[in-house]
């Protein structure tokens, strides 16, 4: 049977693997050898499930959006990851990785962050466990995301500015990798998305898979069948998408839709639509699609949503794109911002701008009245208020 999951070497078709400097090999190898065994132990599962329930607030609701469904004449369900503690799905992964790090005997955590959501989710679980936390963040992003920087500091994390290159997410990731090279024994690196060298894409996808696991039960109750016709999520690196696709990847009844950020337009030179603009290459230890110059230098993407402007995409998604298992759509800033308002005013849910991109698919293509649409409502819009205020002159 064909599968869209990673093989034992971490490849999704042509993509994935571990293209890492030898200095990182022991760290990554230690993880690779242990992640499946540790995460399948009963005591790990019990602690993970307990924290997801009592601390994160899972299961998150599956909500039937009646006004939206009526307007678009189809059945629209929202998986409410925005209701997770810290405001997005990111914490599912950081809980999983901190428990893994503890069992590997690590006493120091590093992470990268772009907009600060993953940084906050990491700082949160480090506070929960009483473990030292250092978050690398591009110097430019530190200026742009002051509230999340303050949150991380309140949670006891040290925020270190990445001053190299373009001073944004990709550079923060480089700095975190360098830190790991310099501290190979005591440190675990919590990557925030389904990117990086094997085993990260598969490991993060497994931690996020709780999203679609819950959807199966919840859809069964709501619709009498445990699968949707379409599952829809925004994709930057792709962790929320990986989570809601996970249990449907190999189910041909389910159409997968991935929504990328077109920024100011695919051809504007200011975009983050990696599937359309990217070419096969290597970024942060993974073979995948990435945005780059013809000479192979990695370029800086643009989106109004800081969580989608990663120049690559997880290898799972690159494979879904190449094999046409998933439909890829890209949505410009303006449509995403408008959907921020639409979802707020039709359903009383203020979404993150990343999340708003996914809903714009409703204007892009036609759905049948009996189609069941499953959207990942991946994050809440609190962090984006300043952007909404500026944009809509609120």
């Amino acid at each position, binding site marked *: 049977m064909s599968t869209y999951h990673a093989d034992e070497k971490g490849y999704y078709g042509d993509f994935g693997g571990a293209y890492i400097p030898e*200095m990182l090999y022991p760290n990554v190898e230690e993880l690779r050898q242990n992640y499946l065994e540790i995460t399948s132990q009963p005591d790990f599962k019990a602690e993970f499930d307990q924290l997801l329930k009592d601390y994160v607030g899972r299961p998150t609701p599956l909500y039937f959006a009646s006004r939206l469904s009526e307007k678009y004449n189809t059945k629209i369900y929202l998986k409410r990851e925005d209701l997770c503690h810290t405001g997005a799905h990111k914490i599912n992964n950081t809980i999983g990785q901190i428990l893994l790090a503890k069992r590997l005997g690590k006493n120091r955590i590093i992470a990268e962050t772009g907009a600060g959501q993953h940084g906050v989710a990491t700082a949160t679980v480090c506070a929960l466990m009483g473990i030292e936390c250092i978050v690398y963040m591009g110097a430019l992003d530190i200026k742009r995301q002051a509230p999340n920087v303050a949150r991380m500091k309140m949670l006891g994390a040290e925020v270190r500015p990445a001053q190299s290159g373009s001073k944004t997410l990709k550079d923060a990731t480089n700095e975190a990798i360098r830190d790991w090279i310099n501290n190979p024994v005591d440190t675990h690196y919590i990557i925030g998305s389904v990117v990086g060298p094997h085993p990260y894409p598969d490991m993060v996808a497994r931690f996020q898979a709780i999203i679609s696991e819950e959807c199966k039960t919840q859809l069964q109750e709501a619709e009498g069948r445990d699968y949707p016709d379409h599952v829809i999520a925004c994709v930057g690196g792709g962790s929320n998408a990986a989570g809601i696709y996970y249990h449907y990847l190999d189910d041909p009844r389910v159409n997968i839709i991935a929504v990328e950020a077109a920024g100011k337009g695919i051809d504007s030179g200011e975009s983050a639509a990696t599937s359309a603009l990217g070419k096969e290459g290597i*970024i942060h230890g993974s073979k995948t699609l990435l945005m780059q110059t013809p000479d192979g230098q990695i370029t800086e993407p643009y989106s109004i949503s800081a969580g989608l402007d990663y120049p690559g995409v997880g290898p799972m998604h690159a494979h879904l794109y190449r094999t046409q298992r998933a439909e890829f759509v890209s949505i410009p800033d303006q449509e995403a911002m408008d959907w921020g308002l639409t979802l707020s005013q039709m359903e009383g849910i203020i979404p993150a701008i990343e999340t708003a991109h996914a809903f714009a698919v409703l204007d892009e293509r036609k759905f049948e009245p009996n189609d069941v649409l499953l959207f990942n409502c991946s994050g809440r819009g609190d962090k984006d208020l300043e952007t909404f205020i500026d944009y809509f002159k609120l």
Partner: protein
Amino acid sequence: MNRIQSVLEQDHKLLSIYFTAGFPNLDDTVSILKQLQDNGVDMIELGLPFSDPLADGPTIQESSTQALRNGMTTDKLFEQLKDVRKEVHVPLVVMGYFNPMMQYGVERFCQRCQEVGIDGLIIPDLPVDVYHEQYQKLFQQYGLLNMFLITPQTPDERIRYIDKVSEGFIYMVSSAATTGAQSSFGDTQAAYFKRIGAMNLNAKLLVGFGISNAETYQAATNHSKGAIIGSAFIKHLEANGANSVADFISQIR
């Protein structure tokens, strides 16, 4: 015999110098190569700049950023090196990340390397097993040796595997670090150098990372065939300009 293999056979310690192509100025590459040779350097590593050099520390990353800003490209490098073998006879190794080579086309890249007289490659993010399975034949076809890194954390079994695949030298990273992170060597390094020395590997060892002066050069070469200096040389070029190579080398040996 490949020039790298020849120089490894010589019975003195080797000094290899790294610098970033296109730095400090775009067209300094060949002039620096010639000065290095004139000052008795045994081997030269030429850095192909990359936007995201994650195995490198700030000094080399900044020199790469500067070189890219100067207009350095893969094509430009080969153009600069077109006639280099008329004047430069020491072994030349290109050190670069894999993504630019993939975009150039790995085979086309190897072919151009052979045409201009490159002897080998160091590609930090191309793991030994991927090289062994997918690229070794191609590299051999174009007469290129590929060198691998080991660190204090590399398990013995993996070192043996790297030794088996290696045809040139093994690049022994002095400590758990990105480039340029150390200023002196301590007992930990000495123990590590001894441990690896005692493994009796087939490949000769060159120590790199954290070598910046005569003292660290001496310490590094006590237990190895030679040493590689990168960041300290880049810093020197930055402070003293592209014509100051002799000053630097005279401080080392």
